[in-house]
């Protein structure tokens, strides 16, 4: 008997023994072991190794039986219980086709060291569920509140439908795109085309993605299993019962499509909005030999000349509809499963990332995953092998521009977002892409280059600091990270940084010597640290960026992350006096500190003042 989960065959036997002893002690009445033949015959599609049957007298005076069943991995996982001779599929919620009861949510954990108590507890839960079902109050409620689960049990389509539709009312026309592997439903032709081209690239030549009419019936309450449509006529009746608009929608769709139609149905369940799908099949009569449609829906009529009434009758006929599961790929679902209020705000934001190196690429990756709707990546450099250890890109991008590659990678992965790459330097960005900077809700610069960031700072000052700029960098060895947000008020970047790019405030210094190592090449220096050390720094900058996008803060400020003290010592470094003062105690490192960014009448501030007075 395989038991790869770690307890082994002996562990299984011991757990079974403990479970049986516990049943004997706890149950007020006898129980019996199930034979392997009984287990196999009753629970054919499951892998149960042992089972026990418990008789139970219910409050309605009827005797019922509960089976307790364990798999070969027991005591890992938990035993399942079943109502013997249950009512069949979709008559009672939480009772599967073979009587297995759904008692625990997916995240539930059980004590594998006490399998007897777990089993007893589940028997108690099963009895309570059966009594609740007998009273009847939970039947309709749970079928409606958890309708996605019960639709899933009733589904008969072999495919899933992917939806990028905003899951909410009213009932409306949608568009669908199909190929042999997938069906995607969107709000409009434009939305679908945009999504598809971002996901799969543009079609060749002048070709376009062909889409077809589809519909969304937004239901005032989720359907009960008894209402699930079996054929086209049922579907039309469901729409008619819902509202005149829903009914008209289906009639219009039949007339427009003149072929099989995908109809999503949506409603609010207990956990939020849910989508399910049906597809009519009356137009799918194909000959067995050549696969061509033998009797198209429009048979007997010129193209698009079929009367509405005839199209309705033919589309919503007695031919069955297939029921399909829907995978939601809409932004609200992807970024927070419909429950993160920030996601819709972030979706409206535009962020420009200047510098797509080890810091910039990782910060960009985090903000894309957070759901920033419009991202622009700017970098003039190509990816090289030594970059790989701490970059979001890999070997397949070697020799290619970092910004373009990063944009292409994330655009394919997040087709609901708009991501663009620009192979230009910071200076060229200022000169040629002013609209980009002006339209950005946040500019994040992670170039590590003072000439680039000094220039960005001057542009920011000259243009009135309308939107915040965030500058992020790491100190040598990843020993400290800095995120400086320059808002409308307070110091500019230059106020806290010297003329050659050295910040006035440093977390660490290296008294024993240089903090950089020389490559065997003229002028090439680097510091050896990896993605792990850099991860804290990137998180600091990413979190500062997220706060800047979601909170209204106009004052420039500085956040510093300092590595654990031992790591700094190991690299030959020490904490600066300024950092010690900021921490106000013996500094253990591994923490974030926040301070106001200093304000002074710096050369850049003077330059901007003069520039603006002349302008």
């Amino acid at each position, binding site marked *: 008997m395989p038991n790869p989960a770690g307890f082994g065959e*002996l562990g299984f*036997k*011991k757990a*079974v*023994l403990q479970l*049986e*002893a516990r049943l*004997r002690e*706890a*149950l*007020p*009445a*006898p129980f019996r072991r199930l034979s392997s033949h009984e287990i196999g015959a009753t629970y054919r599609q499951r892998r149960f190794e042992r089972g026990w049957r*418990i*008789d*139970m*007298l*219910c*409050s309605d005076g009827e*005797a019922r039986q*509960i089976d307790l069943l364990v798999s070969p991995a027991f005591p890992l996982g*938990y035993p399942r219980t079943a109502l013997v001779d249950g009512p069949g599929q979709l008559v009672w919620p939480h009772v599967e086709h073979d009587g297995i009861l759904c008692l*625990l*949510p997916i*995240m*539930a*954990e*059980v*004590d594998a060291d*006490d399998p007897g*108590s*777990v089993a*007893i*507890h*589940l*028997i*108690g*839960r*099963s*009895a*309570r569920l*059966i*009594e609740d079902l007998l009273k009847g109050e939970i039947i309709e409620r749970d079928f409606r509140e958890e309708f996605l689960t019960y639709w899933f049990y009733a589904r008969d389509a072999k495919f899933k439908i992917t939806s990028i539709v905003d899951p909410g009312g009213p009932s409306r026309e949608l568009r669908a795109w199909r190929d042999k592997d997938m069906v995607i439903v969107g709000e409009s032709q434009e939305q679908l085309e945009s999504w598809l081209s971002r996901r799969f690239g543009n079609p060749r030549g002048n070709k376009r993605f062909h889409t077809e009419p589809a519909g969304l019936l937004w239901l005032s309450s989720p359907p009960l299993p008894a209402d699930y449509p079996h054929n086209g006529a049922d579907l039309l009746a469901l729409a008619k019962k819902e509202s005149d608009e829903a009914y008209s929608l289906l009639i219009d769709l039949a007339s427009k499509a003149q072929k099989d139609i995908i109809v999503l149905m949506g409603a609010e369940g207990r956990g939020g909005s849910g989508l399910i799908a049906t597809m009519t099949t009356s137009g799918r009569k194909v000959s067995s030999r050549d696969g061509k449609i033998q009797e198209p829906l429009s048979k007997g009529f010129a193209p698009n000349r079929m009367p509405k009434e005839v199209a309705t009758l033919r589309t919503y006929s007695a031919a069955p509809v297939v029921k399909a599961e829907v995978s939601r790929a809409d932004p609200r679902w992807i970024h927070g499963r419909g429950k993160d209020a920030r996601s819709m705000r972030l979706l409206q934001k535009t962020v420009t990332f200047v510098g797509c190196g080890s810091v910039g690429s990782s910060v960009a990756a985090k903000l894309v995953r957070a759901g920033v709707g419009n991202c622009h990546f700017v970098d003039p450099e190509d990816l090289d092998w030594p970059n790989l250890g701490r970059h979001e890109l890999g070997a397949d991008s070697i020799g290619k521009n970092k910004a373009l590659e990063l944009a292409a990678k994330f655009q394919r992965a997040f087709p609901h977002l708009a991501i663009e790459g620009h192979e230009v330097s910071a200076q060229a960005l200022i000169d040629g892409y002013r609209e980009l900077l002006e339209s950005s809700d946040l500019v994040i610069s992670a170039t590590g280059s003072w000439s680039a960031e000094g220039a960005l700072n001057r542009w920011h000052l000259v243009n009135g600091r309308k939107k915040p700029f965030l500058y992020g960098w790491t100190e040598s060895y990843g020993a400290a990270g800095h995120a400086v947000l320059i808002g409308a008020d307070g110091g500019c970047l230059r106020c806290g940084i010297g003329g050659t790019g050295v910040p006035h405030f440093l977390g660490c210094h290296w008294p024993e010597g240089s903090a950089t190592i020389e490559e065997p090449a003229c002028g090439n220096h680097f510091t050896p640290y990896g993605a792990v050390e850099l991860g804290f720094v990137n998180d600091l900058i990413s979190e500062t960026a997220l706060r800047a996008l979601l909170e209204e803060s106009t004052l420039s400020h500085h956040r510093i992350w300092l590595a654990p003290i031992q790591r700094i010592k190991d690299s030959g470094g020490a904490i600066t006096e300024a950092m010690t003062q900021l921490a106000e105690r013996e500094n253990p490192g591994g923490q974030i500190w926040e301070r106001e960014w200093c304000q002074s009448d710096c050369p850049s501030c003077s330059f901007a003042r003069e520039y603006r007075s002349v302008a």
Partner: protein
Amino acid sequence: MYDCDKDVCAYHKDEVTLPKTDQDSMRSRRDANRKRLRDGLSKANDPAPSEFVKQGSYAMKTMLRDAANDYDIDDGVYFWKEDLVGDRGAEKTSIQARWMVRDAIDDGSFKTAPEVRSNCVRVFYEKGYHVDVPVYRKSEDDDGNMVHELASSSGWKRSDARDVTHWFDDERSNSTNGTQLRRLVRLIKKYAKSRSSWKGGILSGFGITVLVTECQRIDSREDQALYDTMKAIRDRLNWNLVVKHPVTPNDTITSGDNDAKARMLRDKLTQALDWLAPLFEWDCTREKALGCWDKVFNTTYFSERGEEEARAAASYAAPIATSAALIGLESRTSASVLTSGGGRHA
């Protein structure tokens, strides 16, 4: 000592001794192998065997039941010395005799071809077990005594498969309870095989057989006999780790006077005796005693027997449980199930 006589006897019967079906299948496998060898020799115009003699634990009937069907049997083949000659009339060497047997057995039907080993020809079967065929030649010496020689890695070596079997039969005859002696051998071998991690590191089954015959403590109670014999062997090994071969003079089963495998058996026996210590406590319960034997043999067999008895003796409050009574169990065991999960997300 808490009395688990019946339980140890039942364990021996149900889990240790070889079931009839396995005995039958082994016999038929052995016979098929003998026929294959005879046919192969005849086909190659090689001499016919004079006899076959089963040997080892298979002959001594001390083989153990194995859930994975991992049975290895030894079946010696004997030839007349004068028949074992080459084309030019010279007598076959030890290796030539083993090659002759190997070639005769290999009729092309084996997934893994039979191999010539240092002291036998090994035939592999698909399910994992193997049959070892030691090759012997026999002749009469000047005094008319029969001489048997094994085809070994060091040439023809005086040995007879029957000697060990005869020795064991004699030991059984001399014992006050030869049947219990054989059961003790099986039980202690079973203990030595109870953990897969001990495999290869602990003294061989033959070594254990010799030690059991030497240290046997026959008793009317099976559990007492087993405990006392285990203790006697442990004490004997504490004193001397050398186990002499019972029929080959000056030969030992162990290697040197600090054999690692004998040492491991000694240590594991000490461990088992520790596990069984609660049996001697005045307040030892049946449940506790059965748990001790389970621990020794790394099984749940003993506790399951106890559970069966408890179930048979159980008296229940009602012929059928009410749903309300079952619902009442839920709150008493709620600490074992956490519906909201452990709060660790990844």
